[in-house]
């Protein structure tokens, strides 16, 4: 089934050059689909001069996005990964917004935490925590799935990765929200509030760093111990440390959270697909990447042209911003069969753009999939049905695609 509801103006009736897909409200009202559909067909490399973000290009077809991801010489990540300009006086740095060679050095320094052998060690802890959360849910009465399950589970996960004080774990969620909801990115949080929250984050994590700098990394697998002891990262300056923390907190938090909620919603909307997974749990590993494609938790990533580039007949000038709209490429029917349908047993379910591609391809992609696989295994072991009882409320952002509210009632097996 297609989600293409239309609220507000019809994008097919407005002049093409007026189409601006970066408005947070389009995503909050779930009315972005037809805008992207039109751009994919009529103007796949689209220019718009936005009052908030300045001029930017929208890349909306799957293969064009892939080509730009691979072309790191002409399309740099160093201008930042969102369309919002960064505040030069409060500039956090991390490898998602670095080009080679610095990107590669920093990424390699932390990749070990998500090595599959490490993930296997985390699996039983995550399963136990997921089971406890699900067992504690009220049965037969309405609650917000986002809050009681999606946020709680990803937050506990993150606390595990950082070995963060467990009772303070909701702070991680708070910092993640602050990092992504800034007014500069079209969100509701004023910049001073955001900066204060992030400085608090830095302070707390500096304390943890100082505790762990003398720990033996052979006995402690948490991220802070790894960063504090790795020769490539141990001399990071504070803003760089903060930048990498935010990267891991946001990377591991919002995205996974919204994939958990999204999966519940899609299953409710597609009962035939849900029945198939219920009848055959071995479909879960294929269904998980499909949930991630269908949700596309990050709508886009930005690049910046390093020189004038001729691209599909358009000239992208040096310094101009380029948004790679994963949310659109994931619905490109020239690459993905019946892309508007949610299908739990696709042939190549991982062939989607939600994790990006190329050297910045999501470092946590296997961890995210593992979390979703575990939660679905545990859900199906307990519940007959998760009934969505009202329309979800969505995040006001053109970057983070997700939910603030998903009202449900759970029914036991």
């Amino acid at each position, binding site marked *: 089934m297609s989600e293409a509801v239309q609220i507000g103006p019809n994008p097919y009736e407005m002049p093409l050059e007026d189409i601006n897909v970066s408005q947070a409200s389009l995503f909050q009202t779930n009315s972005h689909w037809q805008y992207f559909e039109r751009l994919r067909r009529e103007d796949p490399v689209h220019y718009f001069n936005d009052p908030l973000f300045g001029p930017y290009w929208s890349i909306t077809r799957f293969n064009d996005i892939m080509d730009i991801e691979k072309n790191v010489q002409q399309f740099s990540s160093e201008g930042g990964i969102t369309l919002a300009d960064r505040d030069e006086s409060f500039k956090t740095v991390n490898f998602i917004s670095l080009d080679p060679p610095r990107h*590669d050095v920093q990424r*390699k320094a932390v*990749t070990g935490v*998500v*090595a599959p*052998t490490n993930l296997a060690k985390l699996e039983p802890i995550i399963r136990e925590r997921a089971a406890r959360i699900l067992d504690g849910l009220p049965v037969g009465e309405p609650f917000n799935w986002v809050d009681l399950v999606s946020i709680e589970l990803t937050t506990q996960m993150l606390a595990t990765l950082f070995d963060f004080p467990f009772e303070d774990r909701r702070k991680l969620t708070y910092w993640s929200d602050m990092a992504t909801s800034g007014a500069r990115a079209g969100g509701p949080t004023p910049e001073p509030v955001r900066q204060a929250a992030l400085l608090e984050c830095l302070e707390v994590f500096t304390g943890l760093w100082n505790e762990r700098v003398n720990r033996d990394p052979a006995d402690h697998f948490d991220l802070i111990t790894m960063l504090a002891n790795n020769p490539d990262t141990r001399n990071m300056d504070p803003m760089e440390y903060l930048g990498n923390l935010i990267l891991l907190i946001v990377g591991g938090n919002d995205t996974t959270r919204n994939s958990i909620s999204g999966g519940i919603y899609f299953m409710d909307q597609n009962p035939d697909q849900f029945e198939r997974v219920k009848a055959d749990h071995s479909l879960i590993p294929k269904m998980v990447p499909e949930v991630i494609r269908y949700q596309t938790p990050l709508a886009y990533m930005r690049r910046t042209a390093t020189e004038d580039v001729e691209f599909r007949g358009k000239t992208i000038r040096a310094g101009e911003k380029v948004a790679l709209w994963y949310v659109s490429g994931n619905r490109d029917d020239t690459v993905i069969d019946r892309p508007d349908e949610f299908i739990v047993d696709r042939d190549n379910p991982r062939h989607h753009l939600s994790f990006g*591609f*190329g*050297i910045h391809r999501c470092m946590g992609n*296997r961890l995210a999939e593992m979390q979703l696989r575990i939660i679905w295994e545990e859900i199906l072991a307990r519940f007959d049905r998760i009934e969505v009882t009202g329309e979800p409320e969505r995040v006001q952002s053109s970057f983070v695609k997700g939910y603030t509210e998903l009202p449900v009632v759970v029914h036991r097996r």
Partner: protein
Amino acid sequence: MPQVKFIEFNGTEHVVDASVGESIMVAATSNLVPGIDADCGGECSCATCHVLISAEWQSKLAPRSDQEESMLDLNPDRTDESRLSCQIPMTEELDGITVNLPEFQY
């Protein structure tokens, strides 16, 4: 048809036929050899088709492109034998090539 011998990390061997011109990655995935994910479908953009090939066989292969080099370089377990199997087209000369699979893909 030239043949490829894949050896899984646990030692299990799979000998498969490969068409000239198709990549070693495709030879593996189309014959359901486990251990190669190939998320990007052969675009040299995911590095989940990582394999290990001895120096002897590598001397018969074209050297790594810059793109292959940069993707491999993200893997902390990369060795001199590391290659991305989607970047190696099969030829008659490669008949009998041995391809070792890593413990896991990142």
